[in-house]
């Protein structure tokens, strides 16, 4: 039996997908890249913009046509708004929240698909080996007076399911889920629920294992990653304390590893987080700090809970304590009511903070988010124009930064073959993209030193200087 999974959206969805893949593998399914070959197709949905959720409707429409000719089971999970979920119930065979992931085998077995796991009440590895035979109806119904009817252990969060890492050298570890901020443009509080922090012992355990297995890049994930611990009200490590522990473990391992985190909220960023990053070599000098807008009034309307003064303070810490760090951000253009003057303030912000990269999006009203009720008064053409202008500004700023790199030797983590034939590519510690001429695929997943010979605003090209043994 084969399965295919379409993953949309952010790295958190990719991390969740690894857990879905783990479950599918344990159920005995084989992955296929070819959708048409699959017996089960799933989609990990994204609701951050309408375009993202439109992709789901497009896919399921196509798959439901295939059902006329073949047996196919479809499922959807990930970030789904309530209104879309209602519609998906009519379109997909199975919809589940990531919190219900452990029950997915049982859901699938209702379609008459039995696997070693769907017949087993518990899905953890050791138990599967012991419980290969199906439970009797009596056991399932609890008539024997033994344990409860369903022993399927519902994990409160998907992170309790061990993932099937798709890469042997880079991993994404969810440490926090949900959002309490209720930014007026955003669907995430309605798709991911309230902020919940994963137990630090589990995070540290996973990081230790990854480092022991020579992983080179580890990214800690959360919708508000730096709110980590706040929901536990003092009974868990703070984000800075968690980074301290991870930094110490990584540095003491003697191995080269880059530890990142995304996505933080400026409101919850504290100076001790930046100080901790400065203290440990392994904590990567790359900060992603979403600004969304450079105008205080727009930030108020977005309900971002911080002013530009606060944002300036945080960037000040970064520049002071991490002078070599790259700075990335997210920006929305064309938010409802955004005036020309307010847009100019955002342009000024890009020039002031000299971002190495910004993910610029055109505002997309999300059902359920507060701004959905407001008139969308910025014409699509104006949004496109602002997007183009800001992208050009970013190109200019980034180009000024990368031009200084010519002649420098940069360490790259090689991630794969480049689109340019005969080249490999990867990124620096600061997540700047780089490529170099080489056919040696054994370098993928290793660190190399590259002397930069030419640059573009967001990437560089160079000559291999040294293969780093690590």
């Amino acid at each position, binding site marked *: 039996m084969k399965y295919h999974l379409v993953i949309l959206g952010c790295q958190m969805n990719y991390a969740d997908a690894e857990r879905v893949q783990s479950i599918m593998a344990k159920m005995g399914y084989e992955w296929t890249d070819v959708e048409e070959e699959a017996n089960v197709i799933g989609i990990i949905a994204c609701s951050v913009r309408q375009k993202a959720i439109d992709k789901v409707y497009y896919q399921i429409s196509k798959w439901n046509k295939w059902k006329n000719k073949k047996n196919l089971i479809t499922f959807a999970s990930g970030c789904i708004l309530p209104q879309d*979920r209602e519609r998906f119930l009519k379109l997909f065979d199975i919809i589940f929240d990531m919190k219900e992931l452990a029950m997915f085998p049982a859901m699938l077995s209702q379609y008459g698909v039995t696997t070693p796991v769907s017949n087993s009440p518990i899905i953890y590895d050791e138990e599967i080996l012991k419980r290969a035979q199906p439970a009797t109806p009596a056991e399932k119904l609890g008539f024997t007076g033994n344990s409860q009817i369903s022993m399927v252990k519902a994990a409160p*969060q998907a992170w309790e399911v061990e993932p099937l890492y798709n890469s042997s050298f880079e991993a994404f570890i969810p440490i926090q889920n949900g959002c*309490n901020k*209720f930014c007026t443009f955003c669907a995430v509080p309605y798709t991911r629920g309230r902020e919940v922090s994963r137990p630090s012992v589990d995070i540290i355990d996973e990081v230790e294992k990854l480092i022991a297995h020579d992983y080179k890049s580890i990214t800690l994930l959360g919708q508000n990653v730096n709110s980590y611990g706040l929901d536990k009200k003092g009974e868990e490590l703070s984000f800075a304390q968690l980074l301290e522990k991870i930094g110490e473990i990584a540095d003491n391992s003697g191995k080269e590893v880059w530890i990142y985190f995304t996505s933080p909220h400026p409101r919850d960023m504290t100076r001790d987080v930046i100080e901790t990053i400065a203290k440990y070599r392994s904590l990567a000098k790359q900060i992603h700090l979403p600004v969304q807008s450079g105008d205080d*009034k727009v930030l108020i309307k977005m309900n971002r809970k911080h002013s530009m003064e606060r944002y300036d303070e945080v960037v000040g810490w970064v520049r002071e304590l991490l002078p070599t760090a790259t700075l990335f951000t997210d920006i929305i253009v064309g938010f409802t009511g955004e005036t020309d003057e307010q847009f100019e303030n955002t342009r000024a912000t890009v020039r002031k903070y000299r971002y190495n990269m910004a993910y610029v999006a055109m505002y997309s009203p999300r059902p359920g988010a507060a701004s959905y009720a407001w008139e969308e008064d910025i014409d699509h053409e104006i949004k496109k124009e602002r997007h183009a202008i800001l992208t050009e500004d970013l190109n200019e700023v980034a180009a000024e930064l990368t031009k200084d790199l010519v002649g420098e030797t940069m360490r790259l983590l090689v991630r794969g073959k480049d689109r340019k034939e005969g080249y490999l590519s990867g990124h620096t510690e600061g997540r700047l993209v780089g490529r170099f001429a080489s056919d040696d695929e054994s370098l993928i997943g290793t660190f190399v030193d590259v002397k930069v010979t030419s640059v573009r605003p967001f990437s560089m090209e160079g000559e291999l200087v040294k293969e780093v043994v690590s």
Partner: protein
Amino acid sequence: MQKFNLHKILEKRMLTDSAFILRFERNGMEFEPGQHIQVGPPNGINVREYSIYNSPDEDYIEILVKEVKDGLVTPALKKMDVGDSVIINDAVGFFSLKKEDIDNKKFLFVSSGTGISPFHCFVKSYPNLDYTLLHGVRTAEEQYEREKYEKGKYISCVSREDGGDFKGRVTEWLEKNPVNSDTLCYLCGNCDMIYDVYDILEKQGVKSSQIFTEVYF
């Protein structure tokens, strides 16, 4: 973890034809003054955010609701009665007073419509608070429970008719009654009001670090 709990309605107070207060079982829910909850009918598909109206010292939760015609949640809430249950999740939010300011500072609370909710909560939570509460409404009947505020501290600005303390908008009142520049200003309600008041306060010398906002739908 996000918890959607069922809470029984204990009381329903109609303030106008469309505005009402619902009081629910607290069921141990903890909250800080100024925080909000998501509330919805028990089918659980649609919920809306509401600032908590009452003080954490009380053994219940109250919200102030204004029915939105053809809305997905408020008409359903309006139909509900004592004994019915609603879904409520954990209280969250950052629109709160700093502890070190409560006994030492002067506060200006500016609200429009149901945006008065968190300020009612502040006033009930901190009895010695030195505050002025401006409430911008369209009609005199929207002066929600004004008798609950200390005399002279609640000032209604009624834009469309007489019957309030001031005929006109909160912005006009503020222009006529400039604020001391060291006042801490909290604004809650519709965004246009917040924008306009923000500009006025800045012109009057109030720093942006002293202005706190909570935008409503």
